[in-house]
């Protein structure tokens, strides 16, 4: 007697490296993500994913300060938003709060009520290190030229 193999129900595979807060989820508190984050539910508090992308989905209702690398808003956000790379306000999105970012995009049907300030891009570590070395060399050279012995000459 043979039994037919059980058919597994299909479950969509979540993209790797993305955390999702579904639309039936309500979170109150602080969220710190070490991977990309999609918020399609309700969050009251703080949302941080400093090096990653944060997407507030069309069903997302967020009353929080949001900090991330690239922030995409499709739902409703009340709070300040800081994107170290880019902030996008998509059609149908509503933002009540201030934005600070390097690149800013607001689509025609996106609503924002708050100020939008530019955040200067952070210098790359290698370039910054080179610049620091150059500054140090220039400073030491200046000090050398201003030493009393040289002035006496």
């Amino acid at each position, binding site marked *: 007697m043979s039994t037919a193999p059980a058919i597994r129900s299909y479950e969509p595979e979540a993209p790797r490296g993305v955390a999702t807060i579904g639309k039936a989820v309500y979170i109150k508190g602080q969220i710190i993500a070490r991977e990309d984050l999609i918020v399609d539910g309700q969050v009251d508090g703080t949302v941080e994913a400093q090096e990653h992308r944060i997407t507030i989905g069309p069903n997302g209702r967020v009353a929080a300060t949001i900090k991330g690398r690239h922030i995409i808003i499709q739902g409703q956000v009340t709070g300040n938003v800081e994107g170290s790379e880019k902030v996008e*306000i998509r059609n149908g999105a509503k933002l009540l709060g201030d934005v600070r970012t390097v690149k*800013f995009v607001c689509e025609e049907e996106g609503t*924002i009520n708050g*100020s*939008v*300030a530019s955040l200067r891009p952070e210098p790359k570590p290698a370039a910054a290190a080179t610049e620091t070395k150059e500054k140090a060399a220039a400073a030491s050279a200046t000090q050398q030229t201003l030493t009393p012995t040289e002035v006496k000459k």
Partner: protein
Amino acid sequence: MLDKLRNFFQPDDEPPRLPAYKPPPVEPAAPIQLTRVSNGLDQFFLELGGQDRLKILDLCGAPATTEYLFEQQQIPRPDSFYRALELAFGNGPGYLDRQLEEDRVEIFVKHTLDHKEGEFDAVLLWDSLQYLRPELLGPVLEQIHTITRPGAPIFAIFHADERAEEVPVFSYQIQGRNQLYLTERDRRRLAQPFNNRNIDRIFKNFGPRKFFLARDQLREVLIWR
């Protein structure tokens, strides 16, 4: 035989029934969309003097304008002034009558222009003032005077056709330093005619004014706080 023919052409006393006249369907006029050169806006940016990180209040709040100002290293604050106006006073024909109610006026000004004293370095009013009757216009201008720093440039637009019953409400998008893209989003009755004398009168508490003439029906004005 002749009688039969006569009866055929004139059968009875009833007038012949003609099919009812149906006028051809009138298609609603397409919303106006145009690009125009704006010397007033050019002067506005000249007044900013290339300084960056200035805080600019934009009462029209079009996304393209916000993005343009952001690219210029300014700090735009888009404000949904029109939306607030509709919420507070409606957008039907009675919207001007409701502006006579003091309570509504007080709540509107308190919620729409609730900013710190001297907070803004410049203001883009666009054509928002021409939909406010004197009872609302006074408190709004008083509040704008309070929240802008002395000497701040303020850019405004008024329809030059004083006899027009209704004028298009435009969404103003900055495309370049002296270039605007206008999209009609509604039509409204003007609250009062704004000729040069009226404009001078309503800005009497502000600094000097400069008018910019244009070939179309829009009058641009730059006011210094």
